């Protein structure tokens, strides 16, 4: 018995697998962050709100094909707007009697476009300036950060007012306003990136990269910036909300985007004089759109902050 079982058993024993054969798929930073983000209830609510608005901005113009620039012959007798009806779900504006729904959809699109482009522009400039200041330190840092301090002390509203006086006639095209917001929106990110890189540059892998002959620019933008992406992403996301509010603010005051371009701020601005005639729908819907977008972005940003925090686990 033993003779028969013995060798057979030995053959049946599988040789232990070498440890390098174990196919353990470990998650990278982004997979871990995504997993945390999915569990963050407010983040999911926020991104649903935000993405819905993005979808409306992108798809809406094709579904509701009122041309915002195709001005109908207004009903002279009425002049004031008309409340929501089946034909015009969000009502009609006063004076030109434009479809508010069409305006809001196009406003969402323009406002998001301005917010995203300006915020991305700010993030790029801020990362470059902050990265250089943080990495080189010393005089470079002092000079760049004092410039940031000086610019931060300027009231943005007056700067934009002055800029749009130069560029347009009191108001600018949406791209001009976007670029102005981008050019002044990098200050916070520059400070943030500088602080992160100031601590990261002492890391051993920076010395190791330098010892391998890697140049300064490459170390900043290929080694250090990717390591500081988390706070940059959070700040940029929250920045989109800031720009949308800011654009609405200056456009509302009449110093922003040219009134013929429907941004949420412009629509609100137009509604102002009809509010006391009871035309609530003209102000309500674009206002609600701003609230939903900004709230969504802020929830999403908070969720991103938690998800990308390297100190938090699980």
């Amino acid at each position, binding site marked *: 018995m033993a003779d028969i079982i013995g060798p057979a058993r030995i053959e049946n024993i599988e040789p232990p697998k070498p440890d390098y054969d174990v196919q353990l798929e470990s998650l990278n930073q982004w997979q871990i962050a995504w997993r945390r983000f999915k569990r963050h209830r407010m983040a999911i609510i926020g991104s649903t709100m935000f993405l819905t608005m993005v979808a409306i901005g992108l798809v809406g113009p094709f579904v509701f094909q009122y041309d915002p620039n195709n001005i109908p012959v207004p009903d002279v007798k009425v002049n004031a707007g008309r409340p929501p009806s089946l034909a015009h779900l969000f009502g009609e504006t006063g004076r030109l009697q434009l479809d508010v729904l069409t305006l809001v959809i196009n406003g969402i699109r323009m406002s998001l476009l301005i917010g995203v482009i300006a915020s991305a522009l700010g993030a790029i400039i801020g990362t470059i300036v902050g990265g250089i200041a943080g990495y080189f330190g010393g005089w470079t840092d002092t000079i760049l950060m004092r410039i940031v301090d000086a610019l931060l002390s300027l009231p943005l509203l007056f700067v934009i007012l002055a800029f749009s006086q130069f560029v347009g006639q009191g108001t600018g095209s949406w791209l001009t306003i976007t670029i102005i917001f981008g050019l002044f929106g990098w200050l916070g990110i520059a400070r943030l990136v500088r602080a992160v890189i100031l601590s990261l540059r002492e890391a051993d*892998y920076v010395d190791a990269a330098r010892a391998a002959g890697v140049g300064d620019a490459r170390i900043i933008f290929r080694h250090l910036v990717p390591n500081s992406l988390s706070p940059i992403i959070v700040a940029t996301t929250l920045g989109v909300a800031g720009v949308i509010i800011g654009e609405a603010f200056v456009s509302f005051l009449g110093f922003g985007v040219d009134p013929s371009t429907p941004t949420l701020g412009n629509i609100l601005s137009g509604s102002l004089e009809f509010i006391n005639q009871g035309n609530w729908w003209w102000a309500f819907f674009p206002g609600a759109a701003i609230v939903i977008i900004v709230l969504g972005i802020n929830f999403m940003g908070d969720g991103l902050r938690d998800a990308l925090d390297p100190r938090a686990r699980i």
Partner: protein
Amino acid sequence: MTEAVAARERRAGVGDVLLDVRDLRTYFHVMDGTVKAVDGVSFSIRRGGRLALVGESGSGKSVTALSIMRLIETPPGEFAGGEILFDGVDILKLDSHAIRKIRGGEIAMIFQEPMTSLNPVMTVGDQITEAVLLHQKVNHKGAEEITLTALKDVGVADPKRRMKQYPHELSGGMRQRIMIAMALSCNPQLIIADEPTTALDVTIQRQILELIKSIQERTGAALLLITHDLGVVAETVDDVAVMYAGRVVETGTVENVLLNPRMPYTRGLLESIPSQAKRGQRLSAIRGTVPNPFRMPPGCKFEPRCPYAWDTCSESEPDLIQIGEDRTARCWLNDQRFRSRLNDYVASRPGGGE
């Protein structure tokens, strides 16, 4: 084959001097004054040679290594004097572009902390490939081939998969292999290993040392090993330079220095190694601590801690005194005038004199 023979011949003393550090002075200007971290360090390595810089924490051995790579930030650092001749060129006089060619290309460095010396958001393959692309005229595909070969050479199993992994997916020993692969990928003439095994556990230490040694022998590169572990020194290198308080205090072949130290500090270091022979006895230690960098003793820097010191030692500091061929010690005992003291010193050697 011929490469290995050539490497051996070079080590046997045939090769000319590759790295010649002469009277190097690296100071740091800090709030409280000036720290002379390296103050008159001289040593040289021949092509294919192996030298260890030994000393305790704060003796200036790492700063010496970083100075050779010009990785000292200035300010607060300052190269206050001396020269570092690499292949006849003074590294301290090179502009930043030329020094970048040398870093990684001619001189490669392996760092102490494999856990933090790799960028956590880049795959290890990308990190090695980056170094290859910087120093060799190859396209991206060629660089990846070289990376793959380098990983195979350092004994990484399944290198294709490893290349796509991030540092956090690898063990400490594996990461140090990656660092070594990165160092050897550009065929450097000199490899500086700054305490390459300190952060690893003992079983892995041995593997890594063997690996560094075998790669050094195969490629014929010179090795500058920085360590505080005399056991590592005995196994790995041919020559030793002992450092104390920013100075080289003794140089020579491993056999000479470890068996017959001519500087009491070296003897103190050797006596403080726990070994079989001294079982049951109290382990001897060097009394006192490294002098405060702001209040260095005026004479020999080791004098306050030296059991053999006499008044000459506290009055003036000795130079590196030539004892034999390729053998020096910075100790008055080796001066002709104090012959009798040297005899007493040698006779007092634990385990009997010669």
